[in-house]
């Protein structure tokens, strides 16, 4: 059994820790779900690892690669359990987080008692540093060290555990931040120190400072957790170096992660999109929509040319709105995979208001007490309850049969809370709940496609998450999307995504000049500096034989507008011709996104370099020994499921996904079950299984969802 090469991905979520183990030689994939251990998440990871290794009969020594994503930083923020952070800001601007960028939106605007969510910065731990650097980087006022030392001394009684140093214009001249950091280190040798010029050296003081404060806030706990995990892995004999997932969908080394804890926010969902992009690519689809639905939220992302779309800002600790936007939370400026999120999931509660309207959410039964059918005391009907009544879920095979659920409770909750008040049958009510859930989730897909001028019909949807494959075909029909891809093991797709992500580091510098009079030599020099730094980050990977690459990009904006867009630069020497080409690309993209063809001139706002090292992809998944291409052989039994186009309930074959070999094809109505998810394929649609064991569903039109195709194109008046 010696000499095996295993890759392990471990994704800690709120309820479950998912592990996926891939044998790099045989291609065998093994999944394992354990409960998250909130007090010490490393314990759950280790327990899961040992369980997974015993499943594949392997030893810790066989683990050659170990990639990890965790919700720990997000939870620290949501639960306000991070470090006591002292925030050092330029004199005159110390009230930054007391003034804040958060404000009431949506229904909160009419709440006259609205309170701002408390900042993670305690105002009493804020120190103003007497210093000033000008916009061009020149020193206007040197740091007053005596004043600083006296202020640090006064701070000592409050025992700060971490420091965030965020001085104006430090992105262009970091000398003051470094000097201040030295003084802090001398006085507080054990504290974690984050500098805004390290965390994200780009102009926009608020977002840069938020990212820095966040790094300081989660840093100590995150670092000690990562240290513990690394040690424990070493102790049990795992030779692999620990790698950490970033919010932008790339992985990084532990030492880099320790300096950049903020970069791990929302990294699990990012890994999911990476997995979806991979599934799409392996099935020959470069441009896809990723759709991830769990218990409380649904998230949609866009992948073009095989690559997920990246946004440069994310709000941390906010709630998902019905229009798919993050409305609250602190904006932080780091690259993240662009996801639209709506607060709709299996746990969303359906209710009837005083005026006879059926409504869904925003309240969720979450995992406690959970949907009524969980029999854990929940009496409110949820989307999951509706799906059970409609026959889409099997009471006996919920979570692979590991969990007992009671369809009578689902029936009762829907009857009492929805059907009777509305004068509907229970089935009609369930159908209504299912449709409204789809309408809510459609908002997330709309946000990443139509709202950006992108036609969803050109994009197959890759669906994952426990509940995604159940709703996805109906959702596709809403948008006239003709193809859906359900990858194997959709319930643990984020963990799988960890193992196929490349290592990458993003570097940025603010560099502002008009595009027409850009000094090409100077630009070259700045790129050369940044590239050298970036090279340093991946030299280790290259020495280990990985294929590496450097990519350059410019941030560009119209001269009279503030919105910047990142535009990739071709390889090769930078010259005026290349800048012209980049400008043309920028204008074309603006036109596509916003329908505006501006005569305004363009400005360069920043330069970016990404250094990456390729990860060797796993071999194709192995096919179960019992699998055949005869679909009949995979039918476990038939059950009654409700489909509009079938006119009501029809006997629907239930397929065991493990028994479907590549090349199998069959028509809907069909339900395909696997331990972590259920795929529903309505009549008029058909399923085929490809080499990757993905289900490719050809989506037929449905009566109630059809939109006339020719009218759907996007054009301004």
């Amino acid at each position, binding site marked *: 059994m010696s000499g095996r090469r295993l890759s392990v991905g471990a994704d800690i979520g709120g309820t479950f820790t998912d592990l996926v183990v891939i044998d790099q030689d045989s291609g065998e994939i093994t999944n394992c779900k354990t409960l998250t251990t909130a007090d010490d998440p490393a314990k759950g990871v280790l327990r899961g690892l040992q369980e997974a290794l015993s499943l594949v009969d392997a030893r810790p020594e066989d683990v050659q690669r170990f990639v990890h994503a965790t919700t720990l930083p997000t939870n620290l923020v949501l639960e306000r359990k991070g470090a006591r952070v002292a925030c050092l800001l330029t004199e005159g601007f110390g009230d930054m987080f007391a003034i804040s*960028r958060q404000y009431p*939106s949506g229904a909160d605007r009419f709440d006259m008692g609205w309170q701002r969510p408390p900042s993670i910065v305690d105002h009493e731990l804020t120190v103003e540093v007497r210093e000033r650097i000008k916009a061009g980087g020149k020193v206007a006022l040197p740091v007053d060290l005596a004043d600083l030392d006296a202020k640090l001394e006064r701070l000592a009684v409050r025992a700060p555990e971490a420091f965030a140093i965020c001085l104006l214009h430090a992105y262009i001249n970091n000398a003051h931040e470094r000097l201040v950091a030295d003084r802090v280190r001398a006085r507080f040798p054990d504290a974690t120190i984050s500098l805004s010029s390290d965390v994200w050296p780009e102009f*926009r003081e608020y977002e840069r400072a938020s990212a820095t404060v966040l790094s300081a806030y989660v840093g100590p706990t995150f670092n000690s957790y990562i240290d513990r995990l690394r040690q424990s892995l070493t102790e049990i004999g795992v030779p692999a170096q620990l790698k950490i997932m970033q919010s932008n969908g790339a992985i990084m080394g532990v030492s880099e992660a320790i300096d950049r804890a903020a970069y791990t926010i929302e990294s699990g969902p990012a890994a999911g999109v990476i997995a979806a992009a991979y599934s799409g690519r392996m099935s020959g689809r470069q441009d896809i929509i990723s759709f991830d639905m769990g218990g409380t939220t649904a998230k949609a992302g866009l992948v073009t040319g095989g690559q997920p779309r990246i946004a440069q800002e994310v709000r941390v600790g906010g709630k998902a709105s019905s229009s798919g936007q993050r409305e609250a939370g602190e904006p932080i400026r780091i690259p993240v995979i662009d996801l639209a999120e709506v607060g709709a999931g299996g746990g969303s509660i359906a209710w009837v*208001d005083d005026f*006879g309207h059926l409504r869904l959410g925003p309240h969720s039964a979450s995992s406690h007490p959970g949907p009524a059918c969980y029999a854990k005391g929940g009496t409110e009907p949820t989307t999951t309850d509706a799906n059970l009544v409609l026959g889409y879920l099997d009471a006996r095979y919920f979570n692979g049969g590991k969990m007992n659920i009671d369809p009578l409770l689902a029936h009762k909750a829907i009857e009492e809370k929805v059907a009777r008040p509305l004068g*509907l049958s229970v089935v009609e009510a369930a159908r*209504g709940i299912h449709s409204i859930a789809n309408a809510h989730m459609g908002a997330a897909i709309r946000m990443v496609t139509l709202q950006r001028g992108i036609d969803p019909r050109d994009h197959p949807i890759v669906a994952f998450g426990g509940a995604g494959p159940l709703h996805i075909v109906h959702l596709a029909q809403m948008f006239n999307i003709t193809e859906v891809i359900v990858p194997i093991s959709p319930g643990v797709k984020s963990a799988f995504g960890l193992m196929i992500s490349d290592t990458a580091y993003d570097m940025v510098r603010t560099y502002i000049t008009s595009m027409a009079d850009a000094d090409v030599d100077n630009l070259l020099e700045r790129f050369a500096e940044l590239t050298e730094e970036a090279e340093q980050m991946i030299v280790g990977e290259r020495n280990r034989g990985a294929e590496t690459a450097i990519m350059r990009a410019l941030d560009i904006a119209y001269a009279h507008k503030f919105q910047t867009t990142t535009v990739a630069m071709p390889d090769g020497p930078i010259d005026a011709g290349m800048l012209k080409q980049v400008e043309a690309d920028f204008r074309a993209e603006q036109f596509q996104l916003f329908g505006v063809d501006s005569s305004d001139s363009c400005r360069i706002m920043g330069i970016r370099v990404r250094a990456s090292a390729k990860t060797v992809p796993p071999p194709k998944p192995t096919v179960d020994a019992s699998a055949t291409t005869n679909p009949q052989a995979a039918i476990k039994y038939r059950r009654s499921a409700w489909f509009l186009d079938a006119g009501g309930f029809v006997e629907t074959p239930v397929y065991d996904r493990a028994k479907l070999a590549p090349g199998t094809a069959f028509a809907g109505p069909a339900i395909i079950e696997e331990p972590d998810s259920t795929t529903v394929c309505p009549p008029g649609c058909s399923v085929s299984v490809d080499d990757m064991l993905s289900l490719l569903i050809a989506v037929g039109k449905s009566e109630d969802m059809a939109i006339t195709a020719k009218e759907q194109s996007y054009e301004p*008046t």
Partner: protein
Amino acid sequence: MLDDPVLKELVQNALEAAAEEGGLATVRAAGSPFLSSSGGIACAIFDLDGRQVAQNAGGLSHVSAVRLMQKELLTVFPVAEMAEGDVFICNDHFRGGVHCADIAMFTPVFFEGEPVLLVGVMMIVSDMGGMSAGGLPANATEIFHEGLIIPPLRYRDAGRRRPDIEALILANVRIPTKVLGDFDAILTGLGTARMRALELLQRYGAATVLNVCDHLINYAQAMTGAGIAAIPDGHYEGDYLIEADGFDERERLTVKCRITVEGKHCSFDFTGTDRQARGPINCSRSQALTGVAFTLRCYLDPTIPLNEGFYKAFDAHFPEGSLLNPTFPAACNLRMATVNGVIGSINKAFADVFPAKLIAGPSAPMTATIGNVPGGKPWALVEADFGTIGARNGADGVDGTPPQLYSSPGWMRSIEGYEIEFPIEFECFRLMPDSGGPGEWRGAATILKRIRILEDGWLTVRSSDTFHHGAAGVQGGKPGSLARWVLNEGREDEEDLPPKKTNHYLKAGSTLSLVNGGGGGFGDPLKRNVEAVARDVRHGIVTREAALHDYGVMVEEDGMSAKKVTA
């Protein structure tokens, strides 16, 4: 076909999503941080009887204007005369508008060859001519001073540009390319909302959608009516004092409101409100209605669909020739304090029945424009402050945050971005000590912004309230601090500017301090929690002197201990 309750929810979602998306598309295409944060972009959908069926949530400060302008539009261009691809434009504040720079456009949604719905978008544009750049002349006394008046006109004819109309408008503005870009943004939003509405018609058919619209309007009216029915029947009266009329700083004007609640209906009668002002602080009828609609929603379920049914549940009377419904050719651009008057007089009227919702007075929006002298590289910086919120019953005002109608963040801009962009430097951007009105619950502290200009330039300042009287305290709370424009603060040549001043010359090196009024306080300051006072001292929001003087609390120098001092 789906069952009714489900269909209704689906159609409502889809209509609201269409309006929301139209608003977002406009914001994106406009690409201005000022617009995206101030929420001044409204997008709404109407049926052919001119009844509103959905509106975006973001465009609250124009919540009623799109609706009223659309009603005016239909009197000039009946639906029968509309062709597919037509776009109509209007800005006249005597026809439902707000002021000249707020431009609204409308387009019909055709389905199977027939118009079925109308969509409209309203947004402030960079300039519309008039006395000063940016369209907010503080010294205007007539609409003609404020900019080009555009009555309802056909701006696109069946999808074709109208070069004549376009040329006329652009000949009257200062930066035609920028204004054209703003118009494009409005068209983008309009096109987006139209497409979404069309999809809905294609999915369900016009008859079904219109049926559901009927139902949704009744539903909103029923919800609003039920909310109003919860208010005890009776008459309620409130008033609100506005300082200065925009022409004479010594004038004092009053907004008066008498509310009659009768079962499921209520009416707001503003008879007794002062006559229209000579200066630009008048509030067009649609802005006054916005104030009423916004405030009423604060007392009801915030999820009531924002459609015609909501408006049917109440009526509002704004006497002709008053501050709230001025007659031609009154100027209206500096109306914000007057809108606060509408909101404040209603809140005061409801104080006894809704003590928990009572809120102390806010300060009003103020803006400064600094631009270069002719000859140099052109630049123009607009710095705005949307006012500061008062204290609530049981909660301090949110420091550095405007009243909720404007809903914009305190740290709105990037200081670094401004310093890169303009020849200016910020000296500070901080909460102003002792600015929040003292009270058991303290009014929000305002922000002190001090800007140093590095090149000679022209300064224009506009504000409309709290220069002479601080934002009112309630239930024994004290007023907030006064608003000020100060040149060269702390220097020998320190000078206070009047609330409104057009084209004041500034030499390089001068500083402008922009300080709005603090929010009013709530309740007796002597009842304030001692630790809350000490915390305010530690946070630099209240000085030790004021802690003693206003709150009767002696706070030690380190702020760590404090005790009550009985007078």
